[in-house]
């Protein structure tokens, strides 16, 4: 049996691990936001029939989407990728795993793909749900989906690289994200900012969503490409670095 076939059979276990170890946290985070949004509906002005007025819904949709996405995209991305390889390394669990005929980078590439796909599915479901509640236009929902998916892929790719390097992966990812945002606020328009990781673009696009403006796809594509670049660099690191220290 080839290594690829062995790993493919193990994919179900990796999916199971995502559900048991990570999905609960993601569902709680998203559930809290959706619950709060639901409460907001309860206090909204209603039509004589008791329904929230369509005008109100249209007005509130961008705000609601912005509120939900502005923090959840990074949380979901981090929950998908944090500790993905660092946990096995620091706990010594790599020993039994990688005495089997298995390539380290292939194992974690598959785990990352599964985690990111499932985590994105959770976030995208929430976006669709808000779109449904608020009867938002299809184009707006589509833009929101693109922003959410790009954010998760980009940030989790970065977290994956940090995980391949050291154990404090999510802390490092948040630190980079925070530092970049801070520098953009402090030095607006500075030319050198474009050499920084483009972690700020998701926030910019979420602001556009909040203002009911169409998003810019190009910066988001750059962020996705950056995330995939980090992911590839993470795989190279896993291939080259010793498992044991």
């Amino acid at each position: 049996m080839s290594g690829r076939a062995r790993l493919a059979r193990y994919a179900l276990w990796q999916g199971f691990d995502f559900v048991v170890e990570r999905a609960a946290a993601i569902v709680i985070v998203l559930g809290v936001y959706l619950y709060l949004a639901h409460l907001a509906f309860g206090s909204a002005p209603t039509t004589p029939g008791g329904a929230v007025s369509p005008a109100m819904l249209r007005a509130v949709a961008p705000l609601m989407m912005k509120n939900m996405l502005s923090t959840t995209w990074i949380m979901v991305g981090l929950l998908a990728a944090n500790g993905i390889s660092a946990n096995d390394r620091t706990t010594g669990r790599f020993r039994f795993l990688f005495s089997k005929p298995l390539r380290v980078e292939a194992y974690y590439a598959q785990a990352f793909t599964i985690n990111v796909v499932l985590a994105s599915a959770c976030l995208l479901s929430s976006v669709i749900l808000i779109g449904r509640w608020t009867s938002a236009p299809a184009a707006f929902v589509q833009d929101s989906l693109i922003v959410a998916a790009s954010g998760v892929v980009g940030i989790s790719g970065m977290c994956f690289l940090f995980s391949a390097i050291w154990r404090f992966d999510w802390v490092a990812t948040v630190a980079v994200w925070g530092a970049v945002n801070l520098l953009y606020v402090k030095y607006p328009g500075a030319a050198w900012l474009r050499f920084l990781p483009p972690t700020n673009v998701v926030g910019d696009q979420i602001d556009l969503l909040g203002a009911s403006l169409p998003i810019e796809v190009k910066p988001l594509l750059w962020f996705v490409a950056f995330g995939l670049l980090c992911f590839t660099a993470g795989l190279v690191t896993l291939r080259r670095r010793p498992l044991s220290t």
Partner: protein
Amino acid sequence: MIRFDDVGKTYAPLRGPRVRAVDGMTLDVDAGEVFGIAGPNGAGKTTMIAMMLGFLPPSAGRITVDGLAPRAFVERHGMGYLSELIAINPRWRARESLVRLATLAGLAAGVLGARVDELLALFGLEEHAHKRTKQLSKGTLQRLGLAQSLLRDERVLILDEPTHGLDPIWTQRFRELVPRLRRADRVIVVASHNLDELERLADRVAIVDRGRLQRIVRTRGTASGPTPTRYRIAAQNADSLMAAIFPGAVSAGTGEFDVPVADLAVLNAGLRALLAGGALLVSVSPAYSSLEEQFRQAVGEGA
């Protein structure tokens, strides 16, 4: 099959001095052999094993397993490995752990379940099959670790402290199992602090200390062969006779003496002389096995 060619490993931490864990090690482990590794704590055993599995690259020299770099061998063929630290996800259940690792090891779906159940039975784990690994005792976890190392019919088996935490019954069962695992095309490496165990199981034992190979002791077929060179004799009324009959005898207190002897004839002649001199013998036992003796010579009495 496993070759160390002038291998060195130096750890260079960010803070603190560099540590030379393995230095100038050259040895060959042949197919069909059970090979022991003995050494005091910090001798470099675990580093040697990590390099054999490709978990660590050597800083100097070269290691090959069947002609391949260790990591390449593992990725292509896999190795049966029991680590000193049984680190299995505490959330996994015992049987689930074996199923997962068997899947990664590439056992065909048709035989996987049967093989897992066979190993659960072999290591007395059936009653623990559905317990989470965090609920297992040290000994049970060790048996689970042993079971996972035997999931596949590997050509290289590396067992690091295999009887650590096992009760005497399971220790004995493990010792009975190892000869059954011996095969012409298989290497079994056992690292242990337990010299008696290595003497029973291994054909040869490498004694390492401070990262260097001190000597290789051939044990199989010789374990019961040469006479131990020191005996402990417990006797009453023998204090004044002992030094005269056994030159070099050293009192171990409370009527016991460690005596060096050249061979069994000298020992028996000396015992007859003791009895003739009015001493009452309580016991006579080998003071050290030959491996213990060699170990002490190699690493010093302070080890």
